[in-house]
């Protein structure tokens, strides 16, 4: 993978330390605590980060096809003296806002708004940053009838085709295709206490254990922590959070995120569009271990080393 990983405070080592214990059969309370932090009610959300790391941000609205989805925000901001497009799912803080933001579960309009902004960014040559924080795409009849599946797949297709640098950051909860719909990027970064999973622990509990109360066991089985995602090759770097978690200090959490973003963008801006696209394709092409015919496990993308601290 890339050289020049951003350096950061040594919080990451603490997470890495947890990894060893997480493989046992017992429920790992540290792992569960970390997963709960990913969706802590006071955790900074997408706009909390954007408003802190940009000197100015113009939010755009509407997909020009059907409507505007408040569960997705998209717009242009000034970041280190250049224009950067930001898109991401937005959760709400209180009951009213949570309902308004639909708990960060985007509808097809949300993905189409974000695609509209990404297309403009690509045309104007500005890098794109996606901030991922969702329990999943909205599971509703209206969303299905307007093509939720196609909205997510086309968003992924568009992101892979982009000429400009693309960075995806999982800032909280990255669950299911709704998260991956913003996840095709040159670099995927994850906050220390964020998760990236095929399904939420509660959803898995209901499906696999047929018992909604088994979320802890599901989380234990999926182990979808940032440190594990780094090991699997799903994440390229783990961004440290302030001690105790990002919710304890929004300012510091945003400052660290901004530093990582700037260093990652500088690294990507030094490459040509063609170089970035080939690497972007190969990055995802490698993911997924297979059993080779001789019986061994060929883990194409895995890393043995813990994330650099």
């Amino acid at each position: 993978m890339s050289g020049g990983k951003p350096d950061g405070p040594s919080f990451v080592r603490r997470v890495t330390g947890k990894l060893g214990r997480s493989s046992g059969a017992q429920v790992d309370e540290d792992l569960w605590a970390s997963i709960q932090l990913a969706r802590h009610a006071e955790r900074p959300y997408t706009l909390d980060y954007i408003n802190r790391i940009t000197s100015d941000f113009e939010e755009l609205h509407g997909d020009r096809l059907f409507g505007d989805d408040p569960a997705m925000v998209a717009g242009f901001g000034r970041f280190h003296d250049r224009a950067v497009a930001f898109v991401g799912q937005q959760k709400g803080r209180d009951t009213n806002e949570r309902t308004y933001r639909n708990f960060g579960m985007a509808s097809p309009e949300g993905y189409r708004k974000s695609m509209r902004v990404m297309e403009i960014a690509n045309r104007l040559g500005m890098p794109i940053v996606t901030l991922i924080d969702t329990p999943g795409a909205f599971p509703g009849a209206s969303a299905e009838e307007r093509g939720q599946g196609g909205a997510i797949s086309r968003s992924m297709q568009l992101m892979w085709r982009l000429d400009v640098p693309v960075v995806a950051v999982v800032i909280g909860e990255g669950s299911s295709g709704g998260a991956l719909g913003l996840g095709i990027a040159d670099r995927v970064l994850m906050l220390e206490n964020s998760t990236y999973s095929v399904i939420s622990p509660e959803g898995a509990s209901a499906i696999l254990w047929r018992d909604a109360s088994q979320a802890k066991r599901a989380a234990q089985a999926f182990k979808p922590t940032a440190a594990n995602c780094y090991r699997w090759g799903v994440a390229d770097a783990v961004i440290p959070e302030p001690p105790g978690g990002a919710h304890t200090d929004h300012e510091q959490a945003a400052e660290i995120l901004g530093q990582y973003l700037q260093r990652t963008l500088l690294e990507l801006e030094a490459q040509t569009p063609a170089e970035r696209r080939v690497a972007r394709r190969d990055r995802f092409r490698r993911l997924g271990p297979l059993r080779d015919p001789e019986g061994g496990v060929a883990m194409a993308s895995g890393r043995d080393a813990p994330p650099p601290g």
Partner: protein
Amino acid sequence: MSRVGRNITVSIDRLRHLGHRQDRPGRIASDASTCPKCDSHYSGDEMRRNLRVCPACGHHFPVTAHERLEQLGEPGGYVELWSDLRAADPLQFTDIKPYVDRIREAESKTGMNEAIVCAEIEVRHVPCVAAIMDFTFMGGSMGAVVGEKLARACEHAAQKGIPLIILSSSGGARMQEGTLALMQMAKTVIALDALAEAQVPVIMILAHPTTGGVWASFASLGDVTYAEPGALIAFSGPRVIEETTREVLPADFGRAERQLANGQVDAVVDRRELAARIGRVLHILAPPDGEALLATPPGWAQGGAERVGRVAQSLPSIPGKIMGRIRPGSGDDEGPAE
């Protein structure tokens, strides 16, 4: 791409041998079926002959991937690709039972190594690559092997410059492979673009069910998309939607016919017409045949300007009384002009 070439390891002879597995006693017993819609009863032989469609009511039964290939192509006329790829267990995953046990059970139940079969095949004399999912293998779920085989199928078809036919029948990403299963959505979407770059079409067949991460990735990106009657096509299934939103869904929610009305598929095609329909569209989309071009009547391509002039002169002029009636902004005060 030498890797692709190396992985064509299965000969037609071996395939014929594999095909016999379907005639094992256990398979025949389970092959006899009663239609869930109209209660008609059929022997395994009748089911196969009818392409597993109920002749009485048209209900579409599930079909295994190998039988699908036989339905689409000529008898014995396909070469399976990459059949040796098998799933790893990256998470050492256990829910009610260990993932490795589930794989072993699926293998012995289906006689297959994974939930997808890829092959080179001719459909109505058009050489294609086919990637056929099989719901009987762990619900057709997409883990790393399904993602890898789909990506190889895309790359192989692009490299050979022949169309790709994908048939989806899947509940979505394979939970037991966790986050890495999710990533197969990205892998397959990106791999499909190899075909776009090679200017080769993708025909997508949506069979029951096509849901979750499969619908939200490659399955919604076909150039031409047919759905089988009654197939459930959705990102979130009806049960999840009803539990999350408390909505009461119509009985035909997400079904192929409704998704046609929603604009999500191009046509609902009866399985008994599917091979002919795919063959027809492949012939329409086929690149120009050099000989057919040469066979165009001589003189047609020459003297174009002269002929255009002649044709223009031979058009009747528009009568003055009609011209007089044409006013800006009005188009409906007269019936259709003949």
